[in-house]
Structures are given as structure tokens and as C-alpha cells.
């Protein structure tokens, strides 16, 4: 894009996409802000007028607000931790030459193609069911009392279900990054006397830093709004009510659009706080 002419032509051609995306973002945002200042109960009188910051105050002072923020952060943090640690290890493993590499890699990505609702149902009914689940059978085989996963260990169970789905994504991105590592660098480090662990710490991990950042950011975006896994398993009970789920309950179960919209604005703020922290911590990895 060197000349004045080509630059203005480029702007013109980008305009439709930019305007469309901007509208796509702005319309819901403005509507959310609009409703958040209203008392709006669709089944109980409809639009009952402006109420100022009432909805915000009620949403925050509700006893379920802070637990929901905590649950959200625990789920995001837990899944990130599991997928990144296991992702790096699995990527290292899959990078080793082995028989049937191509097939194994494709099989490995498979969970990511399964819809969240389906994967959560499969986990709930086939693995975690305290009577018929595979885990229950396994526990019984060892003479132990089957665990009621979704009520006794609800948050870890949901983190497990979500991690299972996102692990392949992390592994895939990390694997491509590992494959781009120059093998001469590892050999040079080996000649320089670096042990396998030192090679991992000094060469491989720094090389992966950018890929890890990408995984971290993308997963955070999607995990903050995780919904289906909770909806089909615990329905938000047993301490698994995330902010997203709380908003859903306010809007659809309590039929209070104003209150839910105020919650939506809080969710935006929370997402931005997380984003700012993340960018501060890892954003510099994306430069250079």
C-alpha cells in the first residue's frame, strides 16, 4: 500500500466490513446499556420506565454476584492451567516421530469438533453418572463408593469437561510452534551442555511463549462466556453459577431484562479487567 491512491482505495474497500462489524458490536451493546437503566419485566407489565442505577445496585448486592465472579475466574483459570500445562507436554509428545503420526494427530483434534452441549452430555451421562457412569463402575471395581461428580465435585468436574474440549486446541497450536523450532538450536544447546530439562526451560519454552500467549488470549475470550457445559450439567447449582449463567437466569428465568442487562455490563467490565491484566502480563510476547 504505497501510493496515496491505493491507500484510499484500500480504505474504501475495507469500509463495508468495518461498518458491518461495528454495527454488529454497537447495536447489542447500546441495547444492553439501554435496558440496564430500565425496569423491564416482559411477563409482568413490560417496560415500567427508567430506574437509573437501580439494576446495577441490585445486581451487585445480590448474594450470588461475588460467588459467580469467583466461579467464572476459577473455571477460566483452571481450564487455562490444565490446557496449557498438558498442552505443552502433549505437544512435545506428539512432536516425536512415531508410527501413524498423521492419524494420531487428527484423532487428537477430534474433541474440539464436538459441540459443547454434546460433549457435556456425554461426560455427564456416560462418565460422571453416579449409577451408570464409567467412573462409577471403575470406583465400584475397586470397591469404592462412586462419587457424585456433578454435585460433590461440581466445579472440578466442569473444569474437566471444558478442559477436555479445549486441550486439543491448545495442543495443536503449541505443536505447530514446536515444529517450527530449529533443531540446530536444540543441538547447539546440547553441545553447550544443557540437560534435557535445561533445553526445555531455556530453548523450547521461550520459543513457545508467543504460541502460549495466543492460546491464553483466545481461550480466555471463549471461557469467560462458557455456558452450554453448565446448562446441561449442573444448571448453575453447586457453586457452578458463572457470571454468564447468572445473567441468563436473571433474564430468562426471572424474566428481568433490566437486571440481566446490568449484569451484562458488569460482564463486559470483568472481561476488560481480565484482558488488561492478560495484556500486561503476556502482551509483550506478541511484539518482536
Amino acid at each position, binding site marked *: 500500500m504505497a501510493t496515496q491512491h491505493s491507500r484510499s482505495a484500500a480504505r474504501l474497500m475495507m469500509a463495508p466490513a468495518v461498518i458491518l462489524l461495528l454495527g454488529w458490536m454497537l447495536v447489542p451493546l447500546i441495547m444492553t446499556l439501554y435496558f440496564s437503566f430500565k425496569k423491564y419485566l416482559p411477563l409482568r407489565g413490560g417496560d415500567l420506565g427508567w430506574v437509573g442505577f437501580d439494576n446495577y445496585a441490585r445486581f451487585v448486592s445480590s448474594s450470588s454476584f461475588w460467588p459467580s465472579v469467583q466461579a467464572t475466574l476459577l473455571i477460566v483459570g483452571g481450564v487455562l492451567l490444565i490446557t496449557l500445562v498438558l498442552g505443552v507436554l502433549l505437544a512435545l509428545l506428539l512432536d516425536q516421530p512415531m508410527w501413524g503420526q498423521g492419524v494420531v494427530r487428527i484423532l487428537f483434534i477430534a474433541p474440539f469438533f464436538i459441540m459443547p452441549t454434546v460433549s457435556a452430555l456425554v461426560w455427564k451421562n456416560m462418565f460422571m453418572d453416579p449409577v451408570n457412569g464409567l467412573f462409577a463402575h471403575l470406583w465400584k471395581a475397586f470397591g469404592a463408593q462412586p462419587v457424585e461428580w456433578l454435585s460433590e465435585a461440581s466445579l472440578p468436574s466442569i473444569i474437566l469437561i471444558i478442559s477436555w474440549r479445549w486441550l486439543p486446541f491448545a495442543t495443536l497450536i503449541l505443536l505447530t510452534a514446536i515444529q517450527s523450532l530449529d533443531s540446530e*538450536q536444540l543441538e547447539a544447546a546440547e553441545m*553447550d*551442555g544443557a540437560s534435557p530439562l535445561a533445553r526445555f526451560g531455556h530453548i523450547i519454552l521461550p520459543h513457545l511463549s508467543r504460541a502460549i500467549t495466543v492460546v491464553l488470549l483466545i481461550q480466555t475470550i471463549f471461557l469467560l462466556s462458557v455456558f452450554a457445559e453448565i446448562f446441561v450439567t449442573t444448571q448453575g447449582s453447586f457453586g457452578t453459577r458463572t457470571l454468564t449463567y447468572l445473567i441468563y437466569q436473571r433474564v430468562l428465568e426471572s424474566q428481568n431484562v433490566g437486571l440481566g442487562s446490568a449484569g451484562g455490563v458488569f460482564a463486559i467490565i470483568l472481561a476488560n479487567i481480565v484482558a488488561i491484566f492478560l495484556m500486561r502480563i503476556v502482551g509483550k510476547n506478541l511484539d*518482536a
Partner: protein
Amino acid sequence: MGQIQLNQVTKSFGNVNVIPPLDLTIEDGEFCVFVGPSGCGKSTLLRLIAGLEDVTSGTISIDDNDATEIPPAKRGLAMVFQSYALYPHMSVKKNIAFPLRMAKMDQAEQERRIEAAAKALNLTDYLDRRPGQLSGGQRQRVAIGRAIVREPSAFLFDEPLSNLDAALRVGMRLEISELHERLKTTMIYVTHDQVEAMTMADKIVVLRAGVIEQVGSPLELYHRPQNTFVAGFIGSPKMNLIEGKEAAKHKAHTIGIRPEHITVSAKRVKGAWPGVVGVSEHLGSDTIFHVHDTGLADVITVRSDGEVSYRHGDRIYLVPRMDVLHKFDANGQRIA
């Protein structure tokens, strides 16, 4: 100290035998160059010495100690890679310090060695930069710096200049030779460029398909190539190899004459070979003529004085210097 001895070393990858049994001794302080065409096994040989590949059979000893089973880091050798293999996320200083850090050397000694290496390689001003901010030649020097600080018993160079442009290559060639003079450490250098081999080596090892064709000093190889392969590989432009009737006159299957040992004459001279000038390459100091229709070989290359000037298509006569004629038998081996 850095005497390296290879004893009946072989290497196979699966069924492919890359290096048949091979014996070689590299003396302490020697600058030894492995040269050969691509895929001749010279890099594999270097990696065997480095320990980055395991030998299939045979032994490698360094200073009379069997090093065959010793891991690369413990062999006391340092290697400079073709791609330099610098660590991109570390500064130049950290790159150079890496082997010392891995050896858990004390901080003061590290600083002293890094400073000395940086000074020797003109890197002092660049210590805080990342490899990505350096030019090719500077990166090369960082790679050498990382090797020097370990004070190894021998340096291994794997085609270190092939990623540099022609002018820089000549400069780095001199720097490495200078470094060798200063350090007097054994150096093993792999290249496919016979000019690098000729200019830098104390000893050249010419390899073809994993087999050593000849070992000797640059001038030995130039004056007495043991076979037609070495004859054709060493020297630029290549030696003219002539078969058939003309060779039979000298009781040989093949005769070889270097381009610089032929003079060109416009007039018929006794014993001269007639020919037609094809492309001529003017280098200023010399002119290289490619002469066709001699009835001896497809093309005869002649190097003559830069002043001599013939045009494309001119008929000329080539006068070979018979005293420097190389004779080879039907197997390509040197006769007498």
C-alpha cells in the same frame, strides 16, 4: 590438546550406509577441512565427531580417550552451525554466556571470558542486542564467540559461511584463519567450497560418498591428486580431463591438465591442440576461455593472462605444459 582419532567408524541410517569403515587422525592444533560435494557424508562425519549422531560401529577417541559413548557436552568440543543456531530470545551476551551458565561457572570468570571473546570478535558494542538485530556476519561471530568461551579442545564448523554473501565470506574466512593462528586449537571445518578448503586448511580431507578419496595439504592435493575425482574437485576452474587417443599417447586412460597450465597461441605450434573459442570470462587479472571443437573433450578450459584477447569463434591453438600433466588409469587412479 585436541587430537581426534577415528577408528573404523561407520554410520548407517536404516539400510543406507552413509559412511563405510573410515580411519582418520586429526592432529592437535591442525586446521582440518572436510570437503566434498553435497551428500558425501562430510556433515554426518562432523556430527559423529560432535556426538550428535551415534556411530554404528567403530570408535572415536579424543586425546587418546575413547569418546564414542561420551555425550556431546562432555567431549570438550564446540560447534558452529550452518544456521548459527543462536538463541533468538537471548541477548548476544546471554547467548555467549549460555555454555558457561550451563557449566555453572562462577560469575566473575564468566564475565572475564565473555569480555575477552567479545573483544576478540568485535562484538563489544553489540552485547545487549538480540540476534535478530544483527547482520549475518555479526551473527556468525556470535556463534563463534559462543564456541570460544568454552575453551574447547577442538572447534567444529559445519559450513559456517554458506549463508553469507560472497564479500563477507572472504572476510570471515580470513577471520577464522586468524583465529586459528591465535588460538592454535584444533579446528575441523566442513565445506563444499573447495576455495575455502584450499585457503584455510592445513589438511584437506576429500570425501565422496562417505569414502575418503585423499588426505593431504592443499598443495599436495593440487599438485598430486590421487584420482580423477580429487583432480576434478580441487582447483578452480576445474582440471581438464581428457580421454581417448590423446591420453593413449601418454600411456594413460585419462590425462588431466589444469587450465592454468595451457597457453594459447594464435599460430600453429608443434604438439598444440587446435580449437575454437567459445565463451570467454574476463576476470581482469585472468581470462578464462572455454574452447570447443578440440576433438579431445566437449570443452577445454584455459586460464590465460588478462591481456590476451580472443573473440568468440576464433581459431586458436592450445599448448599444454607436458611437465605438469596428470595421468590416470582406467580406474581413475593416478599413475606414477
